[in-house]
């Protein structure tokens, strides 16, 4: 929590410093943005916040489940190299093009931003899972084999614990990406959500509003980061203990 709070303070300090160098219609100060909130915020902001949050979580969960499960299957079937190549190839598909394709396929609504989040986040999570699992220690696996552990016991005592730090980094990495991508999806194929509001504010050069929505997106990202750090620290900390062979 402290780390996230320090992060926000640093961003605010840098933003405040830079805003001194430019007029408010280019870079408004944090104080300007907060003071003018009542002038520019839509009355249905809560609706937009909930919609965007829902899209981030849905798209991210699709990517998280498929990417992580796909990564595990890849390692178990020793197909690391071809799958890694495929994922790297998928990563270079431009998000805007993919967004337009989804828009044409599914029209305006939830589908485009959700699918965009899922498709653009999934390769990173799959690659991260494969890399994380490939680095697990083989010494404990050797011990388990020496006591005739079954395949399920190998997964339970060796693979799943190795997966915990991978899941943690997947949550952190994937959620930040999802927040960024959902904005693109809402730019292209939506008529609500924070991305939609941000796009309108950008077109009108209403920079106070633009900066406000950027703050909201950062808060999403940092809030989620703080939440999963708390969960891992409280319940899964022992899986991060260093290997001592």
């Amino acid at each position, binding site marked *: 929590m402290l780390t996230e709070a320090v992060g926000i303070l640093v961003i605010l300090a840098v933003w405040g410093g830079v805003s001194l160098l430019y007029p408010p219609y280019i870079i408004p100060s944090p104080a300007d943005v907060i003071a003018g909130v009542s002038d520019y915020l839509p009355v249905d902001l809560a609706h937009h916040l909930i919609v965007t949050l829902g899209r981030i979580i849905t798209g991210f969960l699709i990517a998280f489940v498929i990417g992580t499960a796909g990564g595990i299957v890849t390692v178990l079937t020793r197909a690391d190299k071809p799958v890694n190549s495929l994922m790297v190839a998928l990563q270079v598909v431009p998000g805007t093009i993919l967004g337009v394709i989804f828009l044409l396929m599914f029209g305006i609504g939830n589908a485009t931003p959700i699918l965009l989040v899922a498709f653009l986040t999934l390769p990173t999570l799959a690659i991260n899972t494969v890399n994380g699992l490939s680095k697990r220690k083989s*010494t*404990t696996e*050797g*011990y*388990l*084999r*020496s*006591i*005739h*552990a079954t395949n399920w*016991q190998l997964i339970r*005592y060796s693979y799943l*614990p190795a997966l915990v730090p991978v899941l943690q980094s997947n949550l952190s990495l994937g959620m930040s990406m999802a927040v960024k991508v959902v904005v693109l999806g809402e730019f292209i194929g939506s008529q609500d959500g924070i991305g939609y509001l941000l796009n309108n504010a950008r077109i009108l050069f209403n920079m106070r509003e633009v900066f406000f929505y950027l703050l909201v997106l950062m808060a999403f990202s940092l809030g989620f980061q703080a939440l999963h750090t708390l969960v891992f620290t409280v319940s899964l900390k*022992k*899986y991060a*203990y*260093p*290997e*001592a*062979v």
Partner: protein
Amino acid sequence: MNADWMIQTQDLSKCYGDHEVIHHISLEVRCGERMALFAPSGAGKTTLIRILAGLEQPTSGTVQLNEEYPALIFQEPRLFPYMTVEENVRLPWKVRGMEWTGQVQCEFEEWLDVAELSSWKRYYPYQLSGGMRQKVALIRGLLSHPALALLDEPFQSINRDSRTAIIEHIRSRNPELTLLLVTHDPEEVPMLADSVCYFTSNRLVSPAKLEAHRFLDIFSQYINPAGILTAGY
């Protein structure tokens, strides 16, 4: 057990590519025998132990073990970092679906006492020293009274006093234990083994097993500090 031998190998060889790590080794360890394979570093002894434990296949030759669950204790402890000392020791019981009885708990406490680990059982491996971790691995391997133990340099990070206490405990608690100890420390041989073979450059050098208590008398003048036989042998 249906034979008087515990380990039999016949013309056992192992190659990695062109490199022959083990050269036609034939060996028999009888039930209840405690044999040391005395070997310098790099002689191929870990590979031999891994083949005996079924973790690797030989290139040629045969291996027979008269015990389904030998205890294999590696050079490094191989503890699970997310388990406490007690959880690590209990793991083989969980894996084999055995009951952790009150009797086992008593013997576990006894082992902890001998190994000076009584106050450490709820600690995690990263909180222990290298010697303490190795002692935990020994307890994990030997607590279940295995009929056969394959020990690959298990005492190298354990101090002398502790090593003596543990070896005495093994001898008193597991009198029937058949043991194959691989070591490059000449002092360990007479402490734990009844017989000894010298193993170097991928083959058995000594023509027959020597009695362990005579080992130092015979070999000490030829062994340099690295545990390697000098040219006089």
